[in-house]
């Protein structure tokens, strides 16, 4: 029994990590705390719903919507956030917060008003698998497998490829990166698009566990922020770890105490981690 709860928790946690990593990367590179991150997940899921309604197959519509979300990310980064990058320091952080807040309000109200009945959910055509008395739910397994492979791909990309190394340089020190001939603007756009696609994927995976409606964007944004900040807002591995920990806390407490108390316990855990380790789980004292 406990194994099943843990597995569900890990799957949910990995989905949260997918969301949180985007916030972490975008903040690390451009010091913009993306308050519209959850909206990308919703946009992607709703797009997939629209495409599926238009007759496209499930897989095709999911892939198409992921691509479109990435393009939307590029457009938004290029045309909306470039004035923010001109500001420096605390002004940039505040401006980033407010511009993305305005964006999230606009997207949220547009989706809620134009597609109030949209709801995205995918049910896998596979029955529960039983291994040694433990019931493995295919939705949890698929979520965990897809998240792990995407996160590993990301880690490989950041560690080994030239572009990944350049991205880490920009995150460490923008001025030195420029001196080395790295143009931060292009990499910011790239990372924003990657973050948007990963958020979109998280939205699709959320559709495996629950139902995505246009109004869940704010909640997903809050989850993403919490996971990113608990993990130390510049640390990708910390974010992944904090997503898994918080996912387990969520599912264990919702099994033992019910869904209503579980959110409270989840948030109390968040407050405790913030107060005990303000630099994040894996963060270094700055």
């Amino acid at each position, binding site marked *: 029994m406990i194994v099943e709860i843990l597995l569900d928790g890990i799957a949910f946690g990995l989905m949260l990590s997918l969301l949180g990593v985007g916030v972490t990367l975008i903040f690390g590179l451009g010091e913009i705390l993306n308050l519209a991150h959850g909206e990308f997940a919703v946009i992607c899921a709703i797009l997939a719903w629209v495409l599926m309604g238009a007759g496209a197959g499930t897989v095709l519509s999911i892939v198409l919507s992921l691509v479109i979300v990435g393009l939307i990310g590029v457009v938004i980064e290029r045309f909306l956030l470039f004035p923010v990058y001109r500001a420096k320091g605390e002004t940039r952080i*505040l401006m980033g917060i407010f511009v993305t807040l*305005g964006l999230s309000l606009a997207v949220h109200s547009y989706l809620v008003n134009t597609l109030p009945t949209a709801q995205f959910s995918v049910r896998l055509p596979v029955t529960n698998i039983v291994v040694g008395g433990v019931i493995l739910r295919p939705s949890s397994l698929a979520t965990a497998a897809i998240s792990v492979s995407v996160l590993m791909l990301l880690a490989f990309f950041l560690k080994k490829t030239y572009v990944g190394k350049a991205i880490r340089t920009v995150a460490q020190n923008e001025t030195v990166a420029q001196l080395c001939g790295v143009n931060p603007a292009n990499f910011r756009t790239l990372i924003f698009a990657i973050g948007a696609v990963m958020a979109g994927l998280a939205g699709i995976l959320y559709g495996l566990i629950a139902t995505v409606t246009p109004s869940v964007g704010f909640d997903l944004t809050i989850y993403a922020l919490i996971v990113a900040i608990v993990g130390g807002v510049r640390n990708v591995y910390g974010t992944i770890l904090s997503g898994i920990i918080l996912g387990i806390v969520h599912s264990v407490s919702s099994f033992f105490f019910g869904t209503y108390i579980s959110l409270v316990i989840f948030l109390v855990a968040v407050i405790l981690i913030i*107060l005990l380790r303000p630099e994040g789980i894996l963060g270094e004292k700055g």
Partner: protein
Amino acid sequence: MKKASIIQKLVILGVYSLLPILFGGGDYQLRVLNLLVIFTLFTFSSNMIFGHTRQLFLCQGALVGIGAYLSVILSANLGITPWIVFLIGALVSGGIGSSLSMISSIRKLSIILVAVFTLSFQIIFGELIVGLRNITGGDEGFVIRQDIIPGTININRELTYYYVFVIILFAAILIYSRIINSHIGVAFKCITEDETAAAFVGINVVKYKVFSAFIGSFLFGLIGGIYAYYNLYIAPSMFNLQSTDTLILVMLVLGGMGTLLGPLLGAGVFALIFEFLRPLGQITTLVFGILLIILFVYFREGLVPWLKKLPALYKRL
């Protein structure tokens, strides 16, 4: 107080007293004006906390809600007259706000950590209100049966509340300018510029942050209580991030942080834009969101600092 500043305050009082006559005394107009003054007061508190000491509190809805729920529940269950209960609600709200501020400033949390810390508190508050449905009415909300203004007297209810809120606003303006023109205001200025440097010249940063959080949260709680009795209905959805905090912060940044006129102007312009966009119907909020982005990008210091710079720009032409 200097003569100019007295005149400025009297003009503000005069403008607010004449607004109902200017816009006609219909019930709809009065309702809009009431909400305008209520949110101006909220923005005023936020200006104290965020504008002057840079503590990004995302639990403003909860602070308002604590005042509202506490005054309603206490007076409904214990039969205490609302006017005393308002004060209790405000004090509890102030206590909670200042302890949140004390914890975060002693732990030296950065601006983003403070935001997530207080946001978690706010969501917990909302969940507790929904969960304790025997006392609070849960999701469906709480209908208030007694009104603090007796219905037997033949006066306009909306108009009476309007003047109650305007009197509180005027008192808040007087107290605010008293604080800002004292040594506390100087300390606030140092803290906004550079916290570390402020600590080096001997300013007790924690003390001033907690003080500003207390004043701001006290006002949040007080207005929350009266707002509940004005609205005659409270529900958890009135006190969450989307319906309170976002609006307050948008008004504050629009008007200009750390100024006296900023909250007044920000809330006023916000209300004007919203009323002008209302005929657009469903896409109102979409246009509104886009407008906000444009305003943030080009008027990021706020309207008041921009207006102050205007004469110099005019001379250059």
